[in-house]
């Protein structure tokens, strides 16, 4: 069976040093993948190629036709109402009721005619999520969509994304700085470093994943160490599902 996303030998460089260096990536339909990596490691660069905003310098890229992306900022058109933003680029979306359904999905029906500038940060990001979902994407790209939200709103948004993922079954590639976010949400976690995937972890833990679960906590600690963050009470657990990828 061919994967939904199939990338082979993808490279992209700015100036001399490559940001992405012959990367291979396969994502199956409906799979939830999280992408970790230090700042400047090329996560957004990869997502922009997948979103079709940038071209790869080299490599073979197979992508599904219906893709959506949500950025760190909501990027709503401030001169269009929330509903009009969601309908943008989807013909007949308002008439067919798809916009109303999408608004309902993100619990924003009461703000459908509001101007984006009047929304709170969390509401705006939910509107952006609805705008991405109304296109019924096979691949949903999320580039740190919760990074600028407060901790409580972020938790709610994570729950919402998981719920909507289960309901609509898109493949998701979530870029995040929050290791715990990756551990709670993803089936698979990738760590990008020096232009390659340094680490791939299959997360086979039951949902909901809690910090009190020692396996989950151990995985978090391990990934944090991988990213160069030392923890005070750092115990080295071996995770059987994790494998090192040798460069």
């Amino acid at each position, binding site marked *: 069976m061919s994967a939904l996303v199939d990338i082979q030998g993808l490279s992209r460089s700015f100036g001399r040093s490559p940001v992405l260096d012959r990367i291979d990536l396969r994502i199956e339909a409906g799979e939830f993948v999280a992408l970790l990596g230090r700042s400047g490691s090329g996560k957004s660069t990869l997502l922009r190629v997948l979103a079709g905003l940038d071209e790869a310098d080299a490599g073979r890229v197979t992508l599904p036709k219906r893709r959506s992306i949500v950025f760190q900022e909501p*990027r709503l058109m401030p*001169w*269009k109402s929330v509903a009009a933003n969601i309908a943008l680029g989807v013909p007949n979306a308002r008439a067919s009721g798809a916009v109303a359904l999408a608004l309902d999905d993100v619990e924003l029906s009461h703000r459908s005619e509001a101007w984006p*500038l009047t929304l709170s940060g969390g509401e705006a990001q939910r509107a952006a999520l609805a705008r991405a979902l109304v296109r019924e994407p096979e691949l949903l790209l999320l580039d740190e969509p919760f990074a600028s939200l407060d901790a409580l709103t972020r938790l709610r948004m994570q729950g919402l994304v998981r719920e909507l993922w289960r309901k609509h079954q898109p493949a998701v590639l979530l870029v995040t700085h929050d290791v715990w976010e990756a551990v709670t949400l993803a089936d698979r976690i990738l760590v990008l470093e020096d232009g390659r995937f340094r680490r791939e972890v299959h997360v086979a833990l039951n949902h909901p994943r809690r910090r009190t679960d020692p396996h989950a906590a151990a995985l978090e600690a391990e990934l944090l160490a991988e990213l160069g963050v030392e923890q005070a009470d750092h115990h080295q657990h071996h995770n059987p599902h994790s494998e090192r990828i040798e460069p």
Partner: protein
Amino acid sequence: MADPQRLERLSEAEAKPVRRFGKWRVGASLLRLLSPLAILVLWQLASLTGVLTPHILASPLDIAKTGARLVASGELVTGLGVSFLRVLAGFAIALVVGIALALAAGLSRVGDILVDPPIQMLKAMPFLGLLPLFILWYGIGEAPKIGMVAFGSVFPIYLTLHGGIRGVDRKLIEAGRTLGLNTFGIIRHVVIPGALPSLLVGVRYGLSIAWLSLVVAEQINASSGIGSIITYARDFLQTDVIVVCLIVYALMGLLTDALVRLIEAHTLRWRSW
């Protein structure tokens, strides 16, 4: 600004200073009328005592009377209609040309290279000084007047819209692309609405220049319109008529500006809530 719901939510204690501030502001604006009124009174006194002769400047009361007479006779209204149509025609040309050029220069590199330099050069020209050329080219009919209005007001429209298009948030354009919009869709849903606030500033500025151009063009030669009333009054030393006409020009400027503000308030309601 004054959102009733938000005001409602304020407690009595919080709301009071707001009201007091409002009252104080009304009082202040009344106070500001004091000195203009005093000037009018002094002016009237100077005219009454003969210090200011009607050949230099008519008295405020005479000006008011003359204004009423010119309105009643229909002379002023007819002249105003003619002048207004000139501004309308000239400004409409400026709007179409200015928007077309700004889109060409703002949306493509080639357009920018071709269009922007000559406009920047022409802009440096003192356009009122072009009047003699316009008269040579077009004679003394409507064309030089409408041409002056169009030429004067095209620059603010072009410059502000060009800047506005350049200033449209690239991130929003990217978002539009990820939503599958084509170039036309991006222009329609992102670039034009994003540049609209700038364009409206240009339209307001352009309108004030349009009236200014008209005043100058009508002074030189006019057989109809407000300019001709002024020319006639000058020959007969009727300073009252001249002042009435100047006031009419000013009022028309204010009126058209208010009109654009109204359009602004409607189309840009997304940024004031």
